[in-house]
């Protein structure tokens, strides 16, 4: 089984979706079937994690077959230290998001869970694809179910949000496609071998001229920046989040945003190395702007979901800052922060979703004093609030620390400015916490029901992971040491050659 584990991981949800499509009718049954499928999918990642060789920097569990040989397209998948945590995150959050939708999704349940499973195939496939064409197929395949999840099960302005989401990401996809095609032809003309193989194209990075690299970098970077999202192409995110159903927000924030930074790590850094090194300060500045801008705008939001959405812009700024520090601490911090952000923001969206189910409002001013009526909910919300603020003993602190250590060595001034984000995150998160949970209890919410067992169950794993990463990050970072080291050495060789 282990030799095909990656294909199993990719296609199991799709097969499950087809199975549900054919054999299931009632909403309740599909719900449980989809949950069971997502749990099985998560269980598949456990042998992947345990059998993964942490000392090997390269691709593991590689599967490669011809697909369209005429165009040099292969079905090629593999996993390394950069993608493995993302796989873990994706399968975990998918299962949790599905369990978290049981009471939220009341219409067209069958279609919803099918979309979620297809989405999962797209996400896992994107992280595992080692062929550009395959990557692109999964990338786009992901877009459609997400579009539907927002557009069909979303809130009042769902159509606007879904179209905006689609347009933005589609623009990104087109740019990315241009870059891929350019690389395809360039690599072909250099080696005579026309292939979409990602590793092969990476291996030839030295033969791409500076001008060419700059153009490809620009196309890739813009495409990925939309996904992250970085300022100023972030405005789809708040709308998409506010309108998306809980599961949509969880997956969007938890996994889809990471596609952008994953793309930077997988393509920008190794393929357009010279451009990456030259444009390092530019990305640092953009990251710092995102950190501060996202935090400032988050501060004045009235809709709690929008606030968390803008905070994502700020937190993802730390990720890009770390990655473009181009050193071990920074990149590892960036990857760890991708993981942490997925866990913490995912949890926050789940929490917001479950309170929305009870109150049917997300306006912060409509709440007030609810810590009194829902103490357990308030406690767990506070834990993740503190996690988001980056309180030591929780995951995000370690991630931010690594990022700042890396960034400070690369560009100390920008790292100092980024650290201001530490103040602002406390301001906006605690302000919302104060307005929603503290002060006198709004009489409307006197009989609010506290969390039920199902809700505790799906938040519990996230709670454990947040503290685990905070107290013993090595469990997670040791997966990436070798691969990141390899990447950093690659960058350094090029940097030396440039001089």
């Amino acid at each position, binding site marked *: 089984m282990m030799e095909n584990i990656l294909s199993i991981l990719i296609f199991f949800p799709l097969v499950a979706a087809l199975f549900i499509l054919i054999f299931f009718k009632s909403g309740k049954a599909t719900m449980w079937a989809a949950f069971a499928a997502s749990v099985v999918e998560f269980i598949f990642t456990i042998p992947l994690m345990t059998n993964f060789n942490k000392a090997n920097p390269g691709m593991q569990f590689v599967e490669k077959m011809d697909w369209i040989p005429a165009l040099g397209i292969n079905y090629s998948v593999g996993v390394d230290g950069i993608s493995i945590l993302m796989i873990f995150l994706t399968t975990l959050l998918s299962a949790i998001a599905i369990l978290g939708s049981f009471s939220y999704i009341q219409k067209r349940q069958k*279609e919803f869970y099918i979309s979620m499973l297809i989405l999962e195939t797209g996400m896992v496939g994107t992280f595992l694809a080692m062929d550009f064409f395959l990557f692109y197929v999964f990338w786009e395949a992901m877009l459609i179910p997400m579009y539907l999840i927002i557009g069909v099960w979303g809130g009042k302005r769902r159509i606007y949000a879904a*179209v905006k989401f689609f347009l933005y990401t589609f623009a990104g996809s087109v740019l990315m496609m241009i870059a891929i095609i350019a690389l395809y032809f360039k690599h072909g003309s250099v080696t005579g071998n026309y292939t979409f193989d990602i590793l092969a194209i990476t291996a030839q990075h030295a033969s791409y001229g500076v001008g060419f690299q700059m153009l490809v970098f620009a196309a890739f970077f813009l495409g990925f920046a939309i996904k992250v999202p970085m300022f100023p192409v972030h405005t789809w995110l708040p709308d998409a989040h506010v309108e998306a159903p809980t599961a949509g927000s969880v997956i969007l924030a938890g996994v889809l945003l990471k596609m952008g930074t994953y793309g930077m790590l997988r393509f920008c850094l190794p393929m357009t190395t010279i451009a990456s090194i030259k444009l390092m300060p530019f990305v640092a500045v953009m990251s710092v702007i995102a950190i501060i801008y996202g935090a400032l705008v988050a501060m004045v939001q009235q809709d709690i979901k929008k606030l968390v959405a803008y905070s994502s812009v700020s937190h993802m700024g730390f990720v890009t800052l770390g990655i473009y520090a181009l050193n071990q601490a920074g990149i590892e911090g960036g990857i760890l922060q991708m993981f942490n952000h997925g866990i913490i923001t995912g949890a926050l969206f789940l929490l917001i979703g479950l309170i929305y189910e009870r109150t049917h409002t997300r306006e912060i001013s409509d709440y007030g004093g609810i810590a009194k009526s829902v103490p357990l909910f308030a406690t767990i919300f506070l834990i993740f609030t503190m996690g988001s603020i980056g309180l030591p003993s929780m995951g995000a602190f370690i991630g931010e620390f690594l990022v700042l*250590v890396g960034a*400070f060595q690369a560009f100390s001034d920008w790292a100092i400015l980024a*650290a201001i984000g530490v103040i602002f995150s406390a301001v906006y998160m605690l302000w919302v916490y104060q307005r929603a949970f503290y002060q006198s209890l709004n009489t409307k919410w006197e009989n609010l029901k506290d969390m039920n067992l199902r809700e505790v169950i799906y938040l519990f794993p996230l709670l454990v992971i947040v503290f685990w990463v905070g107290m013993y990050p090595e469990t997670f970072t040791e997966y990436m*040491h070798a691969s990141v080291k390899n990447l950093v050495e690659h960058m350094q060789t090029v940097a030396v050659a440039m001089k």
Partner: protein
Amino acid sequence: MIFAVLTLLGPLVAFLINGLLGRKYIKNLAPIVAIAGVSVSFLCALVIFYLVSTQGFSVDGTLYTWVIAGDLSVPFGILIDPLSSIMLIVVTTISLMVHIYSIGYMHGDPGFWRFFTYLSVFTLSMLVLVLGNNFLMLFVGWELVGLSSYLLIGFWFHKKSAADACKKAFVMNRVGDFGFYVGLLLVVVTFKSVNYSDAFNAEAIHHIKEAGFVVFGMKLSLIDLMTFGLFCGAMGKSAQFPLHTWLPDAMEGPTPVSALIHAATMVTAGVYMVARCNALFSEAMMTSSFVIFAGAMTAFLGATIGLTQYDLKRILAYSTVSQLGYMIMATGVGAYVAAIFHLFTHAMFKGLLFLCSGSVMHAMHDDLDVRNMGGLKKKMPITHWTYLIGCIAIAGIPPLAGFWSKDEILAMTFAGGHNIAWLVGTGVAGMTAFYMFRSYFLVFQGTPRNQYLHDHAHESPWTMAGQLVFLAFLSIFVGMIFGYPLENGYIHTFLGPVLTPAHAGEAHHMSHATATILMLLSIGVAAAGIFVSYLFYVKMYPALPEKTVKTFKPIHKFFYNKWYFDELYDFIFVHPIVTISNMLWRGFDVNVIDFIVNAFGKVPMWFGGLVRHVQTGRIQTYVFTMVIGLIVLVTIFYTV
């Protein structure tokens, strides 16, 4: 090592038990669990202190490797030396006292178990702060005590004032922590390590003494920049000017919390940190000057505001601000031992004073306005006597505790040639004696000013009063035990090896005569303060205070309104930031970026209108078409 781990485990286990089972199962038995936890820590602290003082026991060990960041590896490590052992004593003693006191004080509160859970979190965090062997561990404790402080200030979160105060405390601390973070990063890049043993290495420091660091195009001294950053953290945590404004507001929390966190332990973390980093701070001339300035300024500021307040807890809070200023000033002049000594004695008498105020508050049905009190000495004899002891101790009358440590700070400041700081310090000593006795006279002497409240007042139960007696006992004797003879007491023998005074050291040799004159002067100033207070609030009350207030109306108003710091910060920070943020959001995000995006959107919308007949809104159709499409595409590619 085992004792250190046990010290941490006690409150950790108590916290876990109470946190998980408190609400449903333990409820009113929560204090038993919490006190058991902190008692373990207290006993361990005693053992550790005994071992350190008799056998020179020390530990600098790693439990496990915590964070690996490139070449940097950060251990989860423990450090036991004289400094941490004396801090352990302070933290666990006061914590234990406050735990027991709270049984009586918090009795009947619906959040009873929650309160003890938070106290355990606090004790644990403070112990991590003190026991860590590197900067990152310090920072963990640092932030976690901030969290516990947030939770405990906001304990009665249904009150808006409490909810505001806890947020303010956390955010103000974060402002300082930003500086601390930068300092920490500088430590990382300079020493390639965050361990104290690597950073306080004389050779390493000598190496970088002259080094500069370019920040925003300016080349500054590396060590000054580093220590300044770290000191920013201390300004936040130890409520130093200009980040002092959160501490008085923190009095919204329950009084035992004010005693434990906002007087005795957490707020002194900044002093501990600076003392811990004495190897760095004593080499940083610019920072040291700033530290002296901040300390003296804070001492003065706190005292002037303390003169005018009517709320008993606020008076004590400003006196804490002022006393913290003393400690920080002492670290600035290089008198680290004196600073820690004052931290130690202050913990005892200020903890005592706060617990007394809680006792008074209990008796007065939560009224804290000293204008409504008076004549309580007969009703509450124990509280009265212990409060009086606390006041004498803080005023600096020998042989009580405050005298020894305060006198050392002033003498060292004078010896170091910091004449202005010394003058301010001496003046503040007089003011302190005045306003502390003002509160004493107004509360306990004279005639009752609110007969109803007075009639219902009563002495507190023994769970509370017992702690007062114990702390009063310590407030009388700890100064003598550790501080005699002046400037050469046991505290110097004990802490000297880790806190060797650097640049104040050479200038320290004062003649015996100078030292005696200084000592008599500081006693004289304190006595004068008490005497004036007696005139104002016993002899000629209320005519003289009223007349004085009238004469100095503008100054009084300025002091009474806390120098208008809150208003100033609202004006220069809060309002502009909110305005800018709103502009960015509504102005830029919504009107500029989205305008462009929506314009692009119009084109496909129009196009979409044409093809919308294909869209049935049925998922099955979509999925079906998608699959078919994929198959068709693949087949085309294959056959071509």
